[in-house]
């Protein structure tokens, strides 16, 4: 067995105001897996994600990305880690801050020391992966929401991450954009963690699902098994849309 892309051991975290968000999380994700991270609001999903690239320093336990320890104090390794963990945030306007789409996609690789033609080809390739190549010179605020979400994915893909973390990828998308994004995500050959409330979307894209509630992992298994276990879903404030059923 190869080194897991993500390995979290006994991770606990409390906010400075004393509010404890994580109580010993254990999670291991193999290379190439697509995993849905499910859980009600306030379960600690975002806090967990913020640990994956050292935005929140690990207070207790450990997080490893492809075997490398995430250590917020070690600046050099942190830079490596942030190149390996690509987080796509929920609001694309938070992620797209440069004047044009192309420059925004270039932001990450530039910080990793890429320049000139190499940088250019990385940008073009990333935009092509999400089908946004012709929008390279456009300012982000002229794009539709779905397009901006796709560019946000490209900004992260341009860093050639080991693991792609998506925070609510389907939120606020119209059905067509939602499907287009699903097609793009499915076409990527990359380890993926998807934080979502959109259970059908999780079922569509991820073979494995993990439920986080009250700061611990309460269930870990195949998405199909989890989503057909009514009692489990109910206990964790998760619900399939009315009329939706998994055969």
């Amino acid at each position: 067995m190869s080194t897991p892309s993500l390995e979290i051991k006994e991770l606990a975290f409390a906010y400075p105001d004393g509010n404890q968000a994580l109580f010993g999380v254990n999670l291991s994700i193999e290379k190439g897996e697509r995993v849905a991270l499910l859980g009600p609001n306030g379960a600690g999903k975002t806090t967990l994600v913020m640990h994956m690239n050292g935005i929140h320093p690990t207070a207790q336990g450990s997080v490893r990305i492809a075997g490398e320890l995430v250590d917020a104090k070690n600046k050099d390794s942190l830079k490596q880690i942030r190149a390996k963990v690509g987080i796509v945030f929920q609001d694309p306007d938070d992620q797209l801050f440069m004047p044009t789409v192309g420059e925004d996609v270039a932001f990450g690789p530039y910080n990793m020391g890429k320049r000139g033609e190499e940088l250019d080809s990385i940008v073009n390739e990333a935009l092509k992966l999400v089908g946004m190549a012709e929008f390279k010179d456009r300012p982000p605020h002229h794009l539709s929401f779905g397009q901006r979400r796709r560019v946000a994915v490209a900004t992260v893909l341009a860093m050639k991450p080991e693991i792609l973390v998506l925070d609510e990828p389907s939120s606020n998308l119209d059905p067509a954009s939602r499907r287009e994004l699903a097609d793009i995500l499915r076409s990527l050959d990359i380890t993926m963690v998807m934080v979502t409330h959109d259970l059908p979307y999780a079922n569509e894209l991820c073979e494995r699902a993990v439920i986080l509630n009250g700061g611990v992992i309460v269930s870990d298994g195949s998405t199909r098994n989890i989503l057909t276990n009514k009692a489990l879903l109910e206990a964790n404030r998760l619900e399939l849309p009315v009329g939706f059923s998994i055969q």
Partner: protein
Amino acid sequence: MGERLYLHRHSIVHETASYLKVVAAIAFILVAVSTPISNWQAFIGYFIWVLIVAAIAKIPFTLLFKRALIEIPFIFFAILMPFFGSGERFVAGPFNLYREGLIAGAGIVVKGTLGVLTAIILSTSTTAREILRGLERLRLPALMVQIASFMLRYVNVVNDEMERMKVARDSRGFEATGLKHWRVLATAAGALFIRSYERGERVHLSMLSRGYEGVLPHDEVEKSKASDWLMVLIYPLVALVILLITTLIGN
């Protein structure tokens, strides 16, 4: 917003490198403000020259003058100056004016207008983003350029947010008619501030996640040729020539 000032045209002024234009504009303004107001012939020359440059830049005069109205609040006190002061007085129509105040006030208005017209030509022929690049090239501290470029990027986002909050208020029957509604507006402004502040934090997080270490990427710049410099410096140089000629004739 942000790019709203820019007027897309093909002219020699539009195509000149932005940092050269910034240098030329500042140099021209320096020449204009250091001309003594008593040398009034020079100012006539400056105005004609500014209008010629605006014409070369294919900026319609109506647009130029409409945008120049922005200076009115700033020169308001200059207009009042002839009415207050001390020293020699004289009567002009219904007004009893102070001579010194009139000269000083006219100086501010005339020089201010020249500066504003120059700035308008610059902002109409150059995208805001290009001006920022120009400033970066001129070694304005990177932090200031970054702050300004973030402002440019998010002014639309914040504006939309403000608009949505207004719609939400109005849909619940709110109508700002007077002083008693300021409380509501102030609360909304506060909420908008907090939201923008939090957005700033989220943007910073997303920047850190992509390895931000204090430098924004910028394109490698090509060196400008001496002929480019010469061409753009015609703008302040003509003003300088006008100044010299009028000074010599005056003597």
